[in-house]
């Protein structure tokens, strides 16, 4: 048994806010302290805060596009490498670290769970293989369905009851074949439209070949997700990412899905107003105001970090635009019947007005959305910046003077298009614990995570209290994964595989026969080779659909 003593505990789900508590750990779980326990190891956490392990709700860390970005960007690797030490492997990469390094780097920040945010079912095996080699993290993948041929085909059927049932079976089959955790939609209909050489789509644009409108696709998917009682709602990357004036579409999408559990991802990229000249301005107020009245919705930010980034998304038309705009190198992929994908490396600069406004919008959302339980800190890693920048963002949230000093270094016109300078709010440690741990745990339906009460998994991060919050959160004194000390003073001590979180919803386990014929006709592989075999997951854990 291991005991953590003298630490100021932050456990928002149990209403513990900085009080000194003892935490006793046995067999990877937090247990009730009692006098007759045999304690083999005691961690003295005096002068430290004790929080649940961090939970990454949206990040691109494993699979085909991530690996393509690694080979596409050798420049990301030359200056960033880790030499192997006893039991710890070497690795390279800054914005797109290699698999083992990704696990170590998350762990060194006190994160113990992470979800890969966009996996086409066809590439799921690759994503799971990489996650097997991404240690010290419990992980899962979100399965892409927003531009899937079979989904759109089913949606085009007339018989409403039959259609709903068939969609439920298809979603179940896609989730279980890919061993996914949640339903992900990226630019609904927009990628398929682009593949037919057509323009970008609005909610009511009819998308070939079946004439399905994105609004209908979203409405039917959220209904199915609710019926299947998936632990995480629809994980949605809305239409028109990065375009001036897109907040209108974002708000319209939110209104369409009112009352359903939906997670709006990297909302910063979807909160742009339009200036008279067609540039972007902050529409964070409009978006935040709406969310403040709709507690059923959650979001994450996708906060811009100045410096290098690697954009990678299933939103291939958006990536094509970015490539044309920046002239930077570009990979495009057409993932058969399922989606597209694109990669473009980027550099966010404080002197570039567009980037400076983006940076402000992310922070504005974080400061204007009142309920921290609705919001999760992310950089949409590595799209808006690497996850290793989280400590810096935490400082920006907790330290207004620091925030304003950075704001002063941005393009001088930034203040004309943003509200950040007017915002005085500073996050408390409790609020930081919520937006990095407890809120994502709740949004993901992970009842044993994001908290430190009895029965919780013993994923714990212990940070030394410091005035400089960036330093404080960049180098935890201790990190425990499943009750084992894996990081001490910022150094990784041991490496082992985490669990893979999956769902088993109540629906069909085989593909509908008529769709199986489509599959045989159009896919490049056999149906029997499609589903990810159980052998690919060494430590699966089924999160119940209740």
């Amino acid at each position, binding site marked *: 048994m291991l005991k953590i003593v003298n630490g100021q505990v932050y456990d928002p789900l149990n209403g513990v806010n900085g009080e000194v508590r003892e935490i006793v750990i046995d067999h990877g779980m937090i247990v009730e302290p009692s006098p007759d326990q045999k304690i083999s190891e005691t961690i003295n956490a005096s002068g430290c805060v004790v929080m649940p392990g961090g939970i990454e709700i949206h990040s691109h860390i494993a699979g085909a596009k991530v690996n393509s970005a690694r080979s596409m960007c*050798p*420049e*990301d690797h*030359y200056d960033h490498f880790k030499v192997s030490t006893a039991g710890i492997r070497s690795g390279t990469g800054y914005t797109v670290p290699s698999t083992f390094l990704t696990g170590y780097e998350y762990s060194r920040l006190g994160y113990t769970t992470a979800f890969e945010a966009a996996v086409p079912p066809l590439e799921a095996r690759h994503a799971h293989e990489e996650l097997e080699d991404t240690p010290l993290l419990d992980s899962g993948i979100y399965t892409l369905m927003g531009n899937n041929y079979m989904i759109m085909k089913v949606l085009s059927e007339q018989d409403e009851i039959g259609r709903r049932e068939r969609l439920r079976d298809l979603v179940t089959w896609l989730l279980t074949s890919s061993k996914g955790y949640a339903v992900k939609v990226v630019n609904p209909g927009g990628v398929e439209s682009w593949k037919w050489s057509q323009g970008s789509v609005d909610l009511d644009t009819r998308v070939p070949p079946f004439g399905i409108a994105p609004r209908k696709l979203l409405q039917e998917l959220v209904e199915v997700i609710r019926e299947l009682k998936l632990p995480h709602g629809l994980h949605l990357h809305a239409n028109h990412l990065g375009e001036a004036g897109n907040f209108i579409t974002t708000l319209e999408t939110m209104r369409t899905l009112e009352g359903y559990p939906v997670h709006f991802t990297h909302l910063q990229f979807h909160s742009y107003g339009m200036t008279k000249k067609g540039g972007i301005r902050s529409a964070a107020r409009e978006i935040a105001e709406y969310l403040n009245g709709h507690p059923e919705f959650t979001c994450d930010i996708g906060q811009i970090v100045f410096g290098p980034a690697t954009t990678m998304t299933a939103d291939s038309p958006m990536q094509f635009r970015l490539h044309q705009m920046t002239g930077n190198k570009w990979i495009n992929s057409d993932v058969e019947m399922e989606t597209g994908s694109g990669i473009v490396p980027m550099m966010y600069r404080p002197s570039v007005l567009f980037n400076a406004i983006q940076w402000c919008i992310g922070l504005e959302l974080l400061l204007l959305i009142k309920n921290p339980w609705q919001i999760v800190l992310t950089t949409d890693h590595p799209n808006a910046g690497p996850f290793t920048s989280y400590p810096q963002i935490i400082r920006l949230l907790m330290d207004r003077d620091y925030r304003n000093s950075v704001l002063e270094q941005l393009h001088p016109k930034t203040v004309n298009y943003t509200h950040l300078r007017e915002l005085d709010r500073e996050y408390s440690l409790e609020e930081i614990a919520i937006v990095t741990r407890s809120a994502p745990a709740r949004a993901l339906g992970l009842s044993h995570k994001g908290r430190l009460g009895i029965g919780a998994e013993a994923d714990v991060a212990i940070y030394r209290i410091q005035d400089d919050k960036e330093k404080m959160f960049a180098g935890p004194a201790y990190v425990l994964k499943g009750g084992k000390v894996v990081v001490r003073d910022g150094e990784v001590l041991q490496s082992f595989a985490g669990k893979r979180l999956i769902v088993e919803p109540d629906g069909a386990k085989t593909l509908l026969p008529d769709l199986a014929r489509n599959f045989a006709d159009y896919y490049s592989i056999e149906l029997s080779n499609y589903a990810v075999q159980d052998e690919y997951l060494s430590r699966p854990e089924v999160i119940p659909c209740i």
Partner: protein
Amino acid sequence: MKTEITLRLKEQPSIPVEAESINPENLKGKSLKEIYHLPLWSGNRRQKLEDYFEVEITESGGEAEEAKVLQSEDNLAKVVLAGDLSRFKRLGQGMAAGEMEIRGSVGFHAGASMRGGVLRIKGNAADWLGAHMEGGQIMVEGSAGHFVGAAYRGKTQGMSGGTILIRGSAGQMTGSRMRRGLIAVGGDCGDVPGFKMLAGTILISGACGIRAGANMRRGTIVLLQPTRLLPSFYYNCCYRPVFWGILVQELRQKGFELPHADQDFSFQRFSGDANEGGKGEILICQSN
């Protein structure tokens, strides 16, 4: 008085050796013992300089000698390496001052990221000679491999200053993505010299491979032999550029003679690459 440190290769290693620790500044003020203990990586093994070299430190006097020695102001010893060093990589990498002479051939990355000083190679150089070079001078008596003065994979800018003079031939992608500086090739050059070049000058005396200057933004490629250009280069005029005479003189001063070059040569000027704005130029000698 001038100190000379001579490193004689004992025998050629069977696998490549990472030799970036051998340069004039790093040897400065070190005793013979300290020099023998300098680290050299070979594969995944850390070895010592004494495993490969015999070292001799000599003081050479005479004012006549001294006058010939370049850049002795910071009192750096001249470093001489003797033997076939084609399995030694990164010799002179990052050097910023002093003089290093290699009596033999060298491996990859010689003089890469070099910032100053002089690196003389009496034999041949392998790929990535002077990659990302910022200043100083490299002289190669023999030939050089591919990617002379180029940018490493994924980097957007290669050589940004300094001079690379190659008496023999050079391989492919010479001066790829270079930003500033001069590369002169006495012999032939492989395909796509000056690929995506941003500025600077490349002179090729012998035959040139295909697609010279593909994707070049700015900069100058001078070709003394006729060649076929990409269709995205267009003819401007025939003229006698003033800079040509200055360049020939400067090269001569540096001991780089162009066998048949005349200061009064006239050139056909082509603009390109039109796909990238057409601000670069290729000059093809008319008088040869």
